[in-house]
């Protein structure tokens, strides 16, 4: 297997020579460009790096994936657009899916031809996910799905949805859930994007009205979807933490570069201690996350564990510390997006800061992570 240093050199060389896409602001155009970009990355062998070759991946390790993510971010290249498929849903399909599902769906997921979304949360089932009420009634060889999902990221752009639905009303709540793969073009699905506080329209409400899903699209056994959902959430906590760490490092490096330039100007006003200490604080937080995620990489191949909740909890706090620090550098200029106080682009840092507030909510809130840590890692009794 190729060693990490050589791999990094190869990634850098490829990225230097690559045609970087210009990412349009318009959401539909952005998706079109970024699907192409994912296809380009896929053709060059940079997608599914840690996936097995049988599943269409490169058969390398999580360390190689991390190297690629780091270099991609440092080159200021966009991430592949299908991250929910690649990092969240895909690994569960690969682990639990049928031969047919893996063979037909995974190649398209990897190449960016299919964008995936994750139909988990519902209006009445957030942290208590297992109380979800979307129904999947088996009629012959078809599930008939009705209900509502919410906070479904990129549902308006997605081609497929990994859906949790209740298939057995009578069973205890964790034992009546099935994990279905739903083609978003199926009649009866309505998607309504929600505008978030960042101004983005990332997540959506999704309504299912007697949507007919072939029984072949069931992952694993009927009523046995809960452990698969846990696998999906665990993957999200571990792998996603790595990506967000890299993003935050690049953000801090960019801010440092701006401020260094400022400090080097002959007529530059000396930077106050407050600004220096703010950067120091962000640096300390990121060093801690970096050390933590090095351990994560070592255990990722073993699959999700309750340890992932430690990473996610730390990521939440650290991401918010870092972007909170960076936004603090704007002072009163945060209110005027076109300003550039200290050379920093106000619009970017305000956006990042607001987005970071979601970190402690998505993928299981910080409170849920603490429940998992205290009960499943530390062995404290349920109240």
């Amino acid at each position, binding site marked *: 297997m190729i060693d990490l240093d050589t791999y990094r050199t190869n990634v850098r060389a490829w990225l230097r020579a690559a045609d970087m896409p210009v990412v349009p602001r318009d959401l539909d155009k952005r998706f079109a460009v970024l699907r192409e970009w994912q296809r380009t990355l896929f053709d060059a062998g940079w997608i599914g790096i840690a996936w097995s070759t049988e599943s269409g991946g490169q058969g390398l390790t999580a360390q190689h994936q991390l190297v690629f993510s780091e270099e991609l971010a440092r080159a200021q290249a966009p991430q592949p657009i299908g991250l929910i498929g690649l990092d969240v849903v895909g690994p569960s399909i690969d682990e639990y899916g049928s031969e047919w599902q893996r063979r037909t769906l995974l190649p398209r997921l990897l190449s960016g031809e299919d964008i995936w979304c994750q139909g988990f949360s519902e209006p009445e089932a957030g942290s208590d996910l297992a109380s979800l009420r979307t129904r999947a009634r088996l009629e012959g060889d078809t599930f008939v799905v009705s209900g509502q999902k919410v906070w479904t990221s990129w549902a308006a752009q997605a081609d497929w949805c990994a859906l949790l639905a209740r298939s057995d009303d009578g069973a205890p709540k964790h034992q009546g859930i099935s994990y279905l793969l739903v083609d978003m073009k199926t009649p009866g699905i309505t998607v309504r994007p929600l505008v978030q506080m960042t101004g983005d329209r990332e997540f959506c409400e999704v309504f299912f009205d007697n949507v007919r899903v072939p029984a072949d699209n069931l992952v694993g056994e009927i009523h046995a979807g809960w452990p698969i959902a846990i696998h999906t959430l665990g993957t999200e906590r571990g792998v996603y933490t790595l990506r967000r760490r890299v993003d935050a490092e690049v953000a801090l490096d960019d801010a*440092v570069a701006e*401020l*260094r330039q400022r*400090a080097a100007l002959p007529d530059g006003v000396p*930077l106050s*201690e407050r*600004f*220096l*200490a*703010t*950067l*120091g*604080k962000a*640096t*300390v*937080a990121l*060093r*801690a*996350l*970096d*050390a*933590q995620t*090095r*351990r994560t990489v070592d255990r990722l191949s073993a699959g999700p564990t309750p340890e992932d909740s*430690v990473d996610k*909890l*730390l990521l939440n706090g650290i991401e918010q510390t870092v972007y909170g620090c960076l936004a603090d550098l704007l002072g009163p200029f945060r209110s005027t997006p076109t300003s550039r106080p200290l050379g920093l682009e106000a619009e970017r840092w305000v956006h990042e800061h607001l987005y970071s507030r979601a970190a402690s909510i998505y993928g299981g809130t910080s*409170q849920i*992570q*603490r*429940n998992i*840590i*205290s*009960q499943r*890692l*530390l062995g*404290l*009794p*349920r*109240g």
Partner: protein
Amino acid sequence: MLERGWSADLLRDAAAQGWFSLAVPEEVGGLGIALGELAPVFVALGEHLVPGPLLENVLLPALFADTAVGERLVATVERGGVLAMADPGISCAWSAEVGRVRLTDRGLSGSIGLVRFAAQADLLLVVADAPDGPHVCLVEPGAAGLFVEELDSADPGSRFARVTFDECPAGQPLAAGAAATELVGRLRAWARLLLACELAGIARHLLTITLDYVQQRKQFGRVIGSYQVVQHTLATMHASTSSLHNLCLSAAADAGDQVGRELEVTAAAAKAYASETARQVSEDALQMHGGIGFTAEHELHWYYKRALAARTWYGDERELELEIGRLLILGPDAVPPQNGGLRQPAGATS
């Protein structure tokens, strides 16, 4: 022993077991283990709250082994003696209170307000300023013009003294110019790293005893560890403690290959995180123990006091965050604060 801040017997036992030879190069009779590999040792010292000049006795022979006094330093620690370092770099923000020592052709003059184990020391290493940059000198306790005034100590792991020099003969400096700048930079970086490890050990121990306690203590008919508010505190303590431990081990491993600004940022970041995290974990442990944790009968207060002392030694998070900001922004040409700053060695690369 914790009332006294150290134990001569313990130090001799530790020396007899070879603790202080671990990081000494093989050429001068040590085991030649890299300092970074001692991280788990300092974590264990923290977990067991071992008092005494362990930091000085490990660091100084390792870092100064190839100077003219290397063999003396090694011989002193191997027979259970005490090394102390009069270094104004123990604090940046309080540098005016800490003081400084100047080296002129009339010897050393000035004072350092806080020196660990100066009154017990067999040899005293002094970081002094001279017109041509920092110098490192070695002074013996009976030297003319050296005055050591022992102070009360509230740190269960240390004794303190104020050390004053009045034209004290400095002998041949161990290092001068760029070499001294580089050595002092390394000394301070490794002091920060090993103190961070000790703080990580303290946090680990306090997490362990707190986890036990909340599963024994009952209120309202059930163990308090079954209440969510207690569980969430323990979960936060666990995440903080494990991330601190990971950071210390990673930083110590990385530091072995680093020099200059890179090494200084690595060490300062680990110490800053340790200072903040160990205090938070200690205070959560105290809160979870309720009244018993506040008594002198329980061991907790010793750990808390040691954590509070160690967090300030070579900078707490507020001092070090500012220093890291300086290093990042002002870069290789950065002018550090007059005393105790994280200095950029001449010729080092960032």
